């Protein structure tokens, strides 16, 4: 069972459910962040999310989301013939997508810095 499906299962603890909500909340930002350096296709995005941000997601989660971000004008896509023998659909950020990614990243950074300040005494005490 993957981590994602384990978290989504009815037996998941309240902490697991809280964690999955937290992760879902920042999924859009994570995808836009993945595509910041350049174009990627769906499977690469899934792998990048898993390796760089510990977001283990099902493909059935990510593909409709990519489709929605494209419909919103934040992503653009193109089909590229690959050596694998079949074409792959590459996504890249549009100018609107780059602006949105920067706005979201700034907001996230400010929010997490404030929260960290609030939580630092708690974490210090917990670490003792």
């Amino acid at each position, binding site marked *: 069972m993957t981590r994602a499906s384990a978290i989504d299962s009815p037996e998941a603890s309240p902490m697991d459910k809280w964690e999955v909500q937290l992760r879902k909340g920042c999924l859009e930002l994570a995808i836009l962040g993945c595509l910041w350096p350049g174009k990627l296709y769906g499977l690469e995005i899934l792998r990048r999310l898993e390796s760089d941000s510990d977001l283990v997601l099902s493909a*059935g*989660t990510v593909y409709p989301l990519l*489709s*929605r971000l494209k419909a919103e004008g934040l992503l653009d896509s193109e089909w590229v013939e690959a050596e694998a*023998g*079949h074409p792959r659909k590459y996504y890249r950020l549009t100018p609107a997508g780059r602006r949105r990614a920067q706005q979201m990243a700034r907001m996230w950074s400010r929010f997490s810095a404030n929260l960290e300040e609030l939580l630092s005494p708690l974490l210090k005490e917990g670490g003792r």
Partner: protein
Amino acid sequence: MATDAAARIESYLARVRVALRGLPEREIEDILRELRSHTEDLGGGDERRVDEALKSLGDPVELAKTYRAENQMVQAECGGSPLVILMGLRHATRSRLGRIIATTLYCFGYINLFLLWLAALAKLLSPSRAGLWYVPGDWWSISLVSFDNPPPGERELLGWWLVPIAVALGWAIKVVTDRAAQRWIGRYRRSKGSQEA
């Protein structure tokens, strides 16, 4: 072995295609092509790996439903016909009751628009039967279109001004109804994040 794997992929995609019915054909083809590319990348012709890849995509009907919901909500939020907005609104509610309330309110706005524009048209076609009448001293008696000749004693307030006022008011109701529905859809989508996702 590779043939079986390909058959499994095609069978899965055929079910997705059926459930995506209603979306533009080009969009359906694009979605299926991407899903095929994904499963071929992961499966590499091996039956077991293809099964795992299909499993990670989930139930084909549910997957198609997610695509449709996302698509219709984005289209509705970005504009589109009243029907598109109504379809988007149906996806932007968490419960059946919420869906009924939201669609009823939206339809109520359009019924008012229809009645106002009907009154404007009636004024043009049969001026004596359309107007804004009331019995002096009794504001509850106000009426817009009379199917009979207006009863004696009632006073008409607007005259030919009824036409531009009814058209403008109807248009304003349409704009407010559409905007409210689009804001509702937008807020729902943002609050939900990528839940079906």
